[in-house]
């Protein structure tokens, strides 16, 4: 550890509850650090804002934390090309503010700030975190157009680029997104930006009948409606649709929605507050948190299963993906829900709770597991990144 601190200088090493924190200033230092750690057999955990560290199981060992806190700032922004390049440790909120703060260009960065104001760009990617606006804009895999990264043994490399369309080379960013920092340290990210629409309106359907929810969702799904947010909150019984368009376009879509069910329109402030509330939902309350995804047809079955297990759900109505909070951390209920989702052919990922991780972590299919292991071996041969 003294060696690693020596690489960075004493001021880049701090200590948290007995675990040293290394804070490299640039990709070159990350590279030197990882190369040295590879040779000495150290285990490092990469950390951005530290807002989603419990989205993964506790590491079995951790000699030091590699913090991206010093890898901050916008590297390049091209409003005409609607692209942005930023260092991975930059808080997403700061990036969003910088983009939307430029009043002349009316653009925005459509990654959802899952984890709050401290969540970093790199952390959002590493955890593949996405919130309500994925309904229209997708997840990090749909918004990232390139990245710079340092492999576990210190190779500093680039994938993709800064143009929105590009198929040269492997899309390594796809591998890094969702890899929980286990393959490489992401140091810089290129992103697509989107225009800010002129109008945003939110309507909600309030019902505690599952069939009323699924009927409404099915009707909207096939209707000419482009929702930015289409969320269900359950068992509260709220379905929210946010339309962002031209004023005319939004008005027509809101009218159309009103034909499917009796809806209430929220004020602009209330609509924004609902969005924030849904974004923060997986961090709310106490207890176990599970991220779930099922096929569209299973929305109703999922809602019923969640209510039966005493869980709370906020998620995307048509994808179907979202988060379940189980307030009482009861292993039996966690198991019951995990099984129910798997019976639907769905996916479960533990978000919070050591027990949740133990109960919700499944094994990859044998052939897939071998490829995953081979990728880990190729990108982090010494197993530095844990």
């Amino acid at each position: 550890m003294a060696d690693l601190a020596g690489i960075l200088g004493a001021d880049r090493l701090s200590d948290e509850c007995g675990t040293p924190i290394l804070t490299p200033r640039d990709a070159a230092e990350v590279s030197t650090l990882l190369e040295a750690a590879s040779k000495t057999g150290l285990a490092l955990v990469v950390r951005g804002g530290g807002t989603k560290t419990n989205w993964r199981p506790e590491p079995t060992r951790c000699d030091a934390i590699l913090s991206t806190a010093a890898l901050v700032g916008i590297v390049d922004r091209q409003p005409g090309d609607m692209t942005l390049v930023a260092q991975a440790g930059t808080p997403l909120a700061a990036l969003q503010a910088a983009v939307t703060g430029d009043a002349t260009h009316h653009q925005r960065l459509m990654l959802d700030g899952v984890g709050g104001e401290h969540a970093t760009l790199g952390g959002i990617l590493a955890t593949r975190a996405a919130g309500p606006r994925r309904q229209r804009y997708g997840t990090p895999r749909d918004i990232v157009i390139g990245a710079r990264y340092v492999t576990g043994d210190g190779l500093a490399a680039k994938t993709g680029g800064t143009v929105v369309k590009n198929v040269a080379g492997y899309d390594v960013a796809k591998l890094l997104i969702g890899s929980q920092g286990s393959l490489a340290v992401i140091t810089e990210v290129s992103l697509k930006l989107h225009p800010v629409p002129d109008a945003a309106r939110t309507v909600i359907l309030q019902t505690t009948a599952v069939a009323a929810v699924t009927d409404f969702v099915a009707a909207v799904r096939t209707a000419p409606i482009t929702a930015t947010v289409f969320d269900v909150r359950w068992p509260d019984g709220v379905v929210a649709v946010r339309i962002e368009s031209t004023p005319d376009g939004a008005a027509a879509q809101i009218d159309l929605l009103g034909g499917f069910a009796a809806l209430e329109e929220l004020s602009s402030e209330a609509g924004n507050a609902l969005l924030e509330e849904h974004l923060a939902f997986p961090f709310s309350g106490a207890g176990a948190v599970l991220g779930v995804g099922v096929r569209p047809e299973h929305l109703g079955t999922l809602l019923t299963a969640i209510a039966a297990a005493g869980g709370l759900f906020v998620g995307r109505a048509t994808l179907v993906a979202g988060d379940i909070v189980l307030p009482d951390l009861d292993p039996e209920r966690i198991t019951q829900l995990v099984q129910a989702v798997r019976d639907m052919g769905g996916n479960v990922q533990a978000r919070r709770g050591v027990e949740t991780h133990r109960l919700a972590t499944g094994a990859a299919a044998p052939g897939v597991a071998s490829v995953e292991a081979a990728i880990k071996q190729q990108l982090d041969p010494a197993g530095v990144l844990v």
Partner: protein
Amino acid sequence: MAETTGALAVATQARAIVGPDWVVTDAAQLRVYECDGLTNHRIVPGAVVLPGSTEQVAAVVRLCHEHHVPFVARGAGSGLSGGALPTEDGIVIGLSRLREVLDLDAPNQRVRVQPGVTNLRVSEVAAPHGLYYAPDPSSQQVCTIGGNLAENAGGAHCLKYGFTVNHVLTATVVLSDGTIVELGSEAPDAPGLDLLGVLIGSEGTVGIVTEALLNLLPKPEHVETLVAMFPSTETAGDAVSAIIAEGVVPAAVEMMDRLAIDAAKTQTPITWDTEAALIVELDGPANEVRSQFEAINAICKRCGADAVQVAASPEERLTIWRARKSAFAAVGQLSPAYLVQDGVIPRTRLPEVLNGIRALADEAGLRVANVFHAGDGNLHPLVLYDNAVAGEQAKAEAIAMRIVELCVDFGGSITGEHGVGIEKVCSMPKMFTGDDLTAFDRVRAAFDPVGLCNPGKLLPTPRLCGEVPGFYHTHRVETAGLGERM
């Protein structure tokens, strides 16, 4: 030659797997497979095997693995970067028999298809349900889904809707040792690595797709299309920037220069007489489209369009798109031979790059037609040449390469949708450092440690490109003790 024996040995044993009718070893028949859409590269393969199921593909790949015989998957063979170019000691695994639409699940808006199904067919089978498949490469009538996944195919409408990678849920894949895996998930947010994301666009170097589950979209309620005639590509480029600045994301923004228009006129009844035609299409909810379309119409006029034609009917829209999509092939009417190039630039650099291309063309004394996806800066310069004139093909190839390298100089990419294939392997070091390429090579090695899956494509090799600085490393074949460097 030991290698030929290897391919023939695989072919002989493959007869028992796929049936004798589905193995090609006859020299004349093998020539059918000597090239794909990049016709200036031709290599006759050792043998061709045409499996009829996932299991047969896996069994044939296992044979190749046992005999250390390289293989390349082939769909329609319409690729433009030589991605399906065979090796003479290798096997072509043709997927043309796997062309069933297996299951259309309209309520969940998805369709399961075999890799030999054409792109357009997917939208055709989805149409009765009000659905369609968004990626629409210009070759969509013939190109197949397997090839679309290999190349991460885009098309005119990917500006708004994204590429193949944004529309595939799962893929059944035969890996380089014959293992069958299911990548991706029918439901969102699968745990584990996004292997499907790296497979798509891997140009057949990490495995062979034998089935895919595709996401379908509801057909847009309303579509509006216009063609604006500009006095120059520069003014048309200004209009593109102005449209983007307006905060509109059109479904497509395409540009054709005069030479490309002249070519298209030989195939379609268009009367455009202008230096640059800008095609803009909007789709979505009717009211939104109508208000944005008015704004775009005004922008085009403000930016100097001499005339704006609005498609008044679906037929007129079809004619516009036929003109655009036929432009590549139509250039064949203007020139005995031509190369299709594919480069990307930040769209704000369009005027500078087009001037650069013109200068390169003038310098070489060759004509270059430009047809491109202006909205996302994806250029398709077509370099016209006469292959009967000695040295002209080499000159055209050199210009084509200099054009993509110019794109890189302006912060772009050597390929937006056609892939690196064999054509651009030696341009990869222009865009990526030795360390970048080493990292790519490691990803490849994770999927294909022995190097049998479409070797020589996507990444530069010393044999093809000379030593790339910083890129020397022990080849996997050496590490495995299967061969040594001369």
